């Protein structure tokens, strides 16, 4: 492929990806916590920091690869987090706060 043609393909693809957000209707709301289990318990006051940190860990690690699932049973939250710890090389601390985010 000639360099000019190659540059054209790359420019076309980049433009496609870059323009997309402009087409979407911005409503300004924060991302829905879709990854959290369908059933949630009340959040203890002292656990709010850990929950916020768990959300940060999710956004910084899990969301880089895949979309958040719509919801799942809280009975498997620990299993999911352990799987993610191995697959994404999360630290023990990140595993703990992510579990707290899934099951506060």
């Amino acid at each position, binding site marked *: *492929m000639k360099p000019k043609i*190659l540059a054209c*393909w*790359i420019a*076309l*693809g*980049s433009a*496609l*990806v*870059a*323009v*997309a*957000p402009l*087409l*979407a*209707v*911005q*409503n*300004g*709301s*924060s*991302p*829905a916590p*879709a990854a959290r289990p369908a*059933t949630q318990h009340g959040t203890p006051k002292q656990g709010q920091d850990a929950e916020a940190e768990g959300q*940060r860990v999710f*956004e*910084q690690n899990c*969301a*880089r*690869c*895949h*979309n958040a*699932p*719509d919801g*799942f*049973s*809280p*009975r*498997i*939250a*620990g*299993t*999911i987090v*352990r*799987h993610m*710890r*191995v*697959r994404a*090389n*999360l*630290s*023990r*601390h*990140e595993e703990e706060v992510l*579990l707290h985010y899934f*099951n506060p």
Partner: protein
Amino acid sequence: MRRSTFTLALIGAAVLALGISSLCPAQDAPLLSGGIGFVTNTTGGNTTYIPVAEPLATVPLGQHLLLESRASLLEFFSPDSSGYNHSHFVALTYLQGDVLASRHLTIVVGSYLLPFGTYNERLTPIWIGNFQDEPLMEPLGLMNGGAGLGGQLRGSLISHPRYSFDYAAWFSARSGNSQFQANRSSGLRGSFYFPDQRLEVGASYGRLLEGKRENFAGAHVWWATKDAGLRFRSEFARGQHAYGYWFEADSRPFASGNLESFAGRFEPVFRMQQTFRIDNAASDGLPSVNTQRADFGFDYNLPHNTRILTSYSRQFSAAGNTNIWETGIVHRFLFPAWKGRL
């Protein structure tokens, strides 16, 4: 892997799940996950229809052990001179046991995905990948299969709020169905990640320890905006006979909370890739001639974990230029494998 082995593994996993379910803490029930889909591929005017299922089972054992396995079941309906023919493919993608030995070390034993680059471990599940096809250069460093049989050490060596470093080192002695001699290989991967910038930079090395004793080296860079609304991924790999790269960008308006809008669920994706041959010893799975390919895709995220994938690709090579059209619908499932209490 032969079907009998696959069946045996499934039965074993089910028995194990039944056996340990009563011992599991409330949040640690065994789970069944994976994806099912129906995809089509039209290359040069010929369309192949492919129903696919990729189940994944994960079973925790106590506080420090985890068993996990994924399988692929595909049926191909392809055109031939008499109309359409069909063939099927069943394989155990991996079956591994994970020992969480310490906060910095996880020991993996069994059949595992080789941690060379990022694509093989992170993006091969059908419910994750933006495109149906893997990059052309993907076979580089994956030792003719993508799965190793042996042991692996991995974990997070440094975990700081502003940076982290993770590693994986592996040794494999996989043997095929038709040969007794093991195909020994080893390798390692290390990655720095800067969470605030969403930037990851890493390198991989692999060595085939049999026959030609070929070396493979690779590097990867991933970057995303803070809300993951724009993601950039790239890899480069080089073997002794070929090298190549790919980079991919996708835009996800729904990451900013636009899941309720029609346009917000669209996910345009773009991938550019090139492979280059150093010599004609085409033993590494890459195209036999230099090849360039641009992929344009539009994915749509339906509710209930369902995605529609569409893409158009234009491939250029000395062997001929080709148009490739692909469509598909993929559903991800995720539920407890055993009724438990909470």
